[in-house]
């Protein structure tokens, strides 16, 4: 994999994108052997880097828009658009969305941005990506924050996914392969409403809908089918091999987001479990202050612990 050498405009923005709280200092693409381009951005110049891993492609890197300006005041932040959405390419074959391809994307971005080691943030079904990076490429990973992790397939979605066509699809039945492929926009509008059930979420709903509709049903299906989740036992066994500091956050909302992964993951990694009592499902988007404070506190503690382990004088507390 190599860094993309084509011309980039000074500031690549999605069409019609609203203003940002902070603009990237660096943007670029990495390209793999088949030629799939993956887009990344770098904010800030702090020596300590947080890498926001590419999210599930109903989202893209702008899903972190309320985390980036805050975290970039204290750390260097890398954000990556996932294969299949944002400004990354949209290959059509599921094999292009394998976990291995995602791992290679992240490593290529770290290389392209001369980032020796990074602190990772994964969201929900991209937890396997963070887990594999932390275990198989531990020399590149200083710490991992798993936000509402899912490591194995959600059993509530398996039955609807493989079910036959039906006349109408209610609620979870919409996670049906026929419906998803053919009624993607309708699915997205339902999904956005269902994950933001709280009052005063119109902005978040509009944003998620906009981002999700930057890709399409077949691409979304390819990404859904191509990304390898773990089996439960395997995931726990792999998680036990993590040696870096771990934070696991769990939302407290009662929406369908599964909660059966965070406890076992925190236990297997010896990590800290933070439950956002009463908040959720998408805490980072809807309650950004709560999420940002928890992330910053965790990454500051990683930085401080490394400094004291090196015997160095801790830097004055960052304000």
């Amino acid at each position, binding site marked *: 994999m190599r860094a993309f050498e084509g011309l980039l405009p000074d500031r690549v923005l999605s069409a019609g994108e609203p203003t940002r709280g902070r603009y990237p200092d660096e943007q670029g693409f990495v390209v793999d052997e088949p030629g799939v381009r993956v887009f990344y951005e770098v904010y800030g110049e702090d020596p300590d880097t947080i890498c926001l891993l590419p999210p599930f492609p109903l989202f893209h890197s702008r899903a972190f828009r309320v985390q980036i300006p805050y975290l970039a005041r204290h750390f260097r932040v890398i954000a990556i658009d996932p294969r299949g959405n944002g400004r990354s390419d949209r290959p059509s074959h599921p094999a292009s969305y394998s976990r291995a391809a995602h791992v290679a994307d992240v490593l290529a971005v770290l290389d392209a941005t001369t980032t020796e080691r990074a602190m990772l943030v994964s969201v929900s079904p991209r937890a396997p990506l963070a887990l594999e990076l932390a275990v198989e490429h531990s020399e590149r990973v200083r710490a991992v924050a798993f936000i509402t992790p899912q490591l194995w397939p959600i059993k509530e979605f398996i039955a609807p996914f493989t079910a036959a066509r039906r006349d109408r699809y209610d609620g979870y039945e919409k996670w049906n392969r026929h419906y998803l492929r053919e009624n993607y926009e309708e699915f997205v509008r339902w999904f956005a409403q269902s994950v933001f059930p709280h*009052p005063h979420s119109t902005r978040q709903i509009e944003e998620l809908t906009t981002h999700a509709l930057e890709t399409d049903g077949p691409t979304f299906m390819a990404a859904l089918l191509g990304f390898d989740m773990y089996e439960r036992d395997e995931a726990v066994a792999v998680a036990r091999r993590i040696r870096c500091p771990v934070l696991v956050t769990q939302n407290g909302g009662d929406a369908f987001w599964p909660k059966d992964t965070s406890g076992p993951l925190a236990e297997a990694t010896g990590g800290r479990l933070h439950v956002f009592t009463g908040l959720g499902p998408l805490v980072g988007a809807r309650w950004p202050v709560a999420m940002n404070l928890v992330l910053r506190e965790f990454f500051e503690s990683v930085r401080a612990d490394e400094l004291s382990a090196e015997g160095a004088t801790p830097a004055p507390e960052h304000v």
Partner: protein
Amino acid sequence: MAIAVKSDYEGSRACSPVNEGYVERDGVRTFYEVYGTGEPTILLLPTWSLVHSRVWRCQIAYFARHFRVLTFDGRGNGRSDRPLEPSAYWPQEFALDALAVLDATETERALTVSLSAGTAWNLMLAALHPGRVEGAVFVSPTLYAVGEPFPEWSWLPFNKRFEDYTAVRGQNRYFIAEHYAEFAEFWARLCTPEPHSTRTIEVALGMSLDTSPEVVIATIEPGSSPDLSTVDRLAAAGALLAPLARAVRCPTLVMQGELDPISLPHWARALAADTGGQMVMLAAAGHVPGARKPVRFNLELHRFVERVAASGA
């Protein structure tokens, strides 16, 4: 569609007052709060008593970190008294309440900030009590109605009874008296044409339901004899306020949202010109830019405060 208002619409506060109390004039008690301990003091004036001091909720915490902030609930709402005589709501009463709050908090001078109807008492303070006002900021100066065109809402007759109120919405005595919650929601929505304003509307509606239609009608009553339409009342206010504006000598700033359907840009421009002040147009903002575009609004206001403080030093 009506918005459900929860009893805890106020929510939690980002910062708590360091002091609070009441001033009393002619038997009417007015509740005030002091935030922060810095210099100078910013007095966030009440606007129309349809709402109260929490209309500044997105300003208080920010400015209290840098300066000292005074707020008070305009008579008729919040924790202040609710007299029912229209004369209790004449603009000079709000100006005198403001002076009483300055005295009670031992504030010699302050930068005064008004919103909408507060234009009237802010101009009275700045023009008639120049020793107390270091600088004056006028946000969405509704009452500075110094010329045509007039906004659409102002053409609704105040005193006429309509047979059917399904299509009639706005400042009308009988609509307010008999459909108060609908009126409050209509007004809150008119104030916030920006998308994603549900929270602002909910807070505004909660504040409006804190007072009564009788109070709101009393606040409109002073200028509304049966012969006067709201347009005439606005024009009269503009004519009365223009000489005051020309008498203002302190630095001034006028802030106007470009989407504001209640207070029109030519009034704001006229006020800036007449006070010899600066005019800032806020893109994509409605009548209450401090609530809907708080960051941009606060930064503009902060810059003005710094400029005034520097020139006074």
